[in-house]
């Protein structure tokens, strides 16, 4: 068990003394290997706060989060004995807006910033940077450029490369594909599935795109108003009736299939995952 949430509550203090409760009684377990998890839920439902708990950026108000055997509670930092930094190398978190973390003169320096903080030597870090920049779909030529002259999508890729270069065991991404064009989005999702398949690492992605959830995820978590309301397989999620209550959507492929079933007045014997699967099914029927 890599990460374990036990009755985690988290509230932000507010000016008038009342507290805004961002997480309510979260119980959750995440495996170290082989999971491809998508985290969905409407804006403000606590998704980002939840992932910030996963590498001890914030501490729970009550309850505990155990990350690789290290228990993090509300008073953990005050005791001052627990080193939180090594955890952040093992659980790599990519923030939503890349402009929040790029600061160096060149892309290269920015990518090696993370690894060097965790004690990787300069040469090794540069070697890693040259590798990961290709993984995120940019040329090695980009390493010499200034991060501030890049487009939004390129900045995003560079910030993801900066986390990948840390070689985390678990990769957590907060809306990695927002603001990217369809091709860029598909390329990145392919990269994440590659990391998941080839290295057998757990990947956690926050997304609003139900197609991504349906196509890639092995497990889906749904947040609603600070509570974890669903934890299971995506196919089962989309056949429940709660989708609308949680302000979610149905993946395109499912609505197409349902439409076809209705129009042709037939019943397919399985729910297709991709458009190709649907072709085969339709061919069978015709």
């Amino acid at each position, binding site marked *: 068990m890599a990460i374990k949430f036990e009755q985690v509550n988290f509230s932000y203090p507010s000016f008038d003394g009342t507290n805004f409760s961002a997480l309510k009684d979260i119980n959750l377990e995440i495996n170290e290997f082989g999971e491809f998890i998508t985290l969905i839920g409407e804006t403000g439902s606590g998704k980002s706060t939840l992932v910030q708990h996963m590498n001890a950026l914030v501490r729970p108000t009550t309850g505990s989060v155990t990350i690789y055997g290290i228990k993090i509670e509300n008073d953990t930092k005050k005791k001052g004995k627990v080193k939180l930094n090594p955890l952040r190398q093992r659980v790599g978190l990519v923030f939503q807006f890349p402009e929040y973390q790029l*600061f160096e003169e060149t892309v290269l320096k920015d990518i090696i910033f*993370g690894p060097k903080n965790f004690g990787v030597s300069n040469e090794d870090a540069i070697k890693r940077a040259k590798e990961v920049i290709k993984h995120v779909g940019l040329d090695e030529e980009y390493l010499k450029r200034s991060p*501030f002259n890049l487009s939004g999508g390129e900045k995003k890729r560079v910030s993801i490369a900066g986390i990948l270069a*840390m070689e985390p065991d678990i990769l957590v991404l907060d809306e990695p594909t927002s603001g990217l064009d369809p091709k860029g989005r598909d390329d990145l999702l392919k990269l994440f599935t590659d990391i998941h398949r080839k290295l057998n690492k757990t990947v956690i992605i926050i997304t609003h795109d139900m197609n991504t959830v349906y196509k890639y995820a092995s497990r889906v978590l749904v947040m609603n108003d600070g509570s974890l309301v669903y934890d299971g397989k995506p196919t089962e999620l989309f056949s429940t009736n709660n989708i609308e209550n949680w302000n979610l959507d149905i993946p395109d492929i499912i609505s197409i299939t349902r439409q076809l079933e209705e129009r042709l007045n037939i019943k397919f014997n399985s729910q297709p995952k991709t458009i190709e699967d649907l072709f085969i099914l339709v061919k069978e029927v015709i």
Partner: protein
Amino acid sequence: MKNIIIGQFIPGTSFLYKMDPRSKIIALMLLMVSTFILSSVSHILIMLGVVLVILKIGGIPVTRIARGLKPIMILLLFTFTFQIIFIKTGNLVFDTDLTLTYITLPIILLIVIFWYFTKRYTRFKFLYLLITVFGILTLLSLYNPGSIISSSHLEIYQDGLEGAFFIMIRLIIIVTLSTILTLTTKPTDLNLGLEKILKPLGIIRINAEEIAMIISIALRYIPTLLDEANKIMLAQASRGVDFSEGKFKDKIMQIISLLVPMFIISFKRSDDLANAMEARSFVPGKRRTRLHTLSWHNIDTSVIVFCVLVLASVITVRIML
């Protein structure tokens, strides 16, 4: 960082809240000038009394003012000490030898260590520090066995004591007066009031409206930028930056990793804001109407009259005596 509240406005209903910001600013200036004109301890004590009466009628808790005085505690202490040590005129009030010996030195070190480790357990840290320092001084003057390391002479004169007291009261009055203003006036009202008061400066080509706009935008963006700073700190922390630990050299790098994105984001924000304002036809220096307008009431007139009377009597006292 979320706890920082900009402006210290606390809602209330007393006459201070009913006043126009313009009259409050003018009244503040009149009273401040009066405080600076006064020159003797007894007179400034009367002034302090007046301020306390204003606090009482205005319904502002004294504890709140005391909290406002906290940041200038160090300044107060410094001026007080220097006044006492360096002014050597008037009657000699107090005279003692301070002797440091080989026996008292370790005792003092012990006291300092004891203070250092126990200070976190008391709520009145400053008072505790004062008591400790006073204790050490008493020890130095009264108890001096063993061989002497060094010896010095502490003399306190009446003028020094009075001067120190006088300056301290003066500082307290000024800080209290300005705290009253910020406690009872919303930043936006304060800004509007300033703008109206600075309007005559238009004659010498200073545009008060622009200055007011700059101030209000700056105030508006402080919480936003704090929020951004917090996000950047989290993002860098997840890349292994530890803002609380680390060597000095690393610390500098960490601060750069916070500052550069802050600058970038601020410039981008100001660019966006400028575009948004232009899109809504904002032209600097053009005459504009306002959603909230200020209105002058009888209470404003009476307060100003009162303050002018205070100033007049202070000037009279100064000239006569």
